[in-house]
């Protein structure tokens, strides 16, 4: 089934505005409203790519600048983060993202079309990679430079902007590795605190 057709309105949307045509949505991908694209100004093709069976729920926003690109894999639950980037963001498959989460290319992003005389933002920004099976907790921030491996868990309120190995659990501001959650159980060093 197709819920989202680029260039057309969502049939159930409260807003009289079309989904941008430079987007791609897979089979059974769901989007709550075209409101998600209020600050979307990407000139890339596609600026946003969403895989099959991925759901983008209420309050998810794509504040993607002219050079920005967000790609999201299959079977993700995207429960209301803000993607604020003028760089590339790659989200894998089977990823959970909680609400009030920021996935942003820098610590203080604002939409590129209103930088004005401040002229800050673009140079500071960096790409972000979120691996398959990651789980991003509420109110956390995944910032430019973050490369999350497979199955990484980001604790609530954490601020992450560095490379995180597979199956690590990170928490805190600034975040650090506080444990491990690999498939089928724990690593021998599960009780050891790193960094």
């Amino acid at each position: 089934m197709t819920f989202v057709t680029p260039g057309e309105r969502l049939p159930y949307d409260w807003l009289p505005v079309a989904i941008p045509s430079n987007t791609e949505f897979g089979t059974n991908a769901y989007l709550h409203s075209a409101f998600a694209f209020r600050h979307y100004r990407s000139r890339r093709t596609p600026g946003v790519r969403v895989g099959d069976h991925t759901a983008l729920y209420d309050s998810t926003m794509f504040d993607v600048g002219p050079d920005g690109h967000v790609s999201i894999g299959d079977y993700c639950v995207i429960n209301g983060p803000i993607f604020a980037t003028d760089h590339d963001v790659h989200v894998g498959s089977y990823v959970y993202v909680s609400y009030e989460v920021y996935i942003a290319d820098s610590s203080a992003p604002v939409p590129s079309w209103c930088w004005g005389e401040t002229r800050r933002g673009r140079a500071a920004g960096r790409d972000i990679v979120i691996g398959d099976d990651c789980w991003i907790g509420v109110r956390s921030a995944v910032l430019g430079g973050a490369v999350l491996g497979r199955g990484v868990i980001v604790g609530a309120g954490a601020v992450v902007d560095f490379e995180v190995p597979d199956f690590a659990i990170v928490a805190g501001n600034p975040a650090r590795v506080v444990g491990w959650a690999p498939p089928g159980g724990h690593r021998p060093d599960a009780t050891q605190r790193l960094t």
Partner: protein
Amino acid sequence: MSDSSWESPGPEPQLAELVGQWDYSTLPANVRLGRECFLETRGVVGPIKTTRDPALVIGDRTRILSGGWGGSMTIEDPGMVEIGDDSVLIGVQIMCSELVRIGARVLVSYNTVIADSDFHPRDPDLRRSDAISGAPLGEWFGYAPRYSAPVMIEDDVTIGINTLILKGTKIGRGATVLAGSVVTADVASGASVQGNPARQVEP
């Protein structure tokens, strides 16, 4: 198929309200707007609960945007909010009862809260009388005086997402407050701070 888009809302009044194309002259008379200001929605500059004049001064070319979850400026008597030229604020929540001054070319990113008071007294008995006074059909004793101190954010400051700026703090010129910080004390000019409470880090 719709002819409206976020960049050219066309005749849709519902969309125009959401992209800054509304009548700024309908703002209260104690709001002073500079030239070429951009206020994305009506909600980003209110509610203004004081009759002080001016209660809100916004500089030239300053842009105030609503984030995903909106933004607001609650200005209570006798508060005043001043924002300099060429600043960009997105999704910021300002709660002012004395003075919040933001300089020029300041960048305030998503979901930042700036408050210049504690809202309620420390004395639990006075807090209880506040609770009764504010309750629906509660007995009116009047609100206790609240402790407040101005928040000063100087020129060229950058404030990251999810930040709290608490009362009585001064953030020096060119300083950077990194994402998720809680600013409880002054920040030196040019410094970078991070954490709760915010401490100086290497930039």
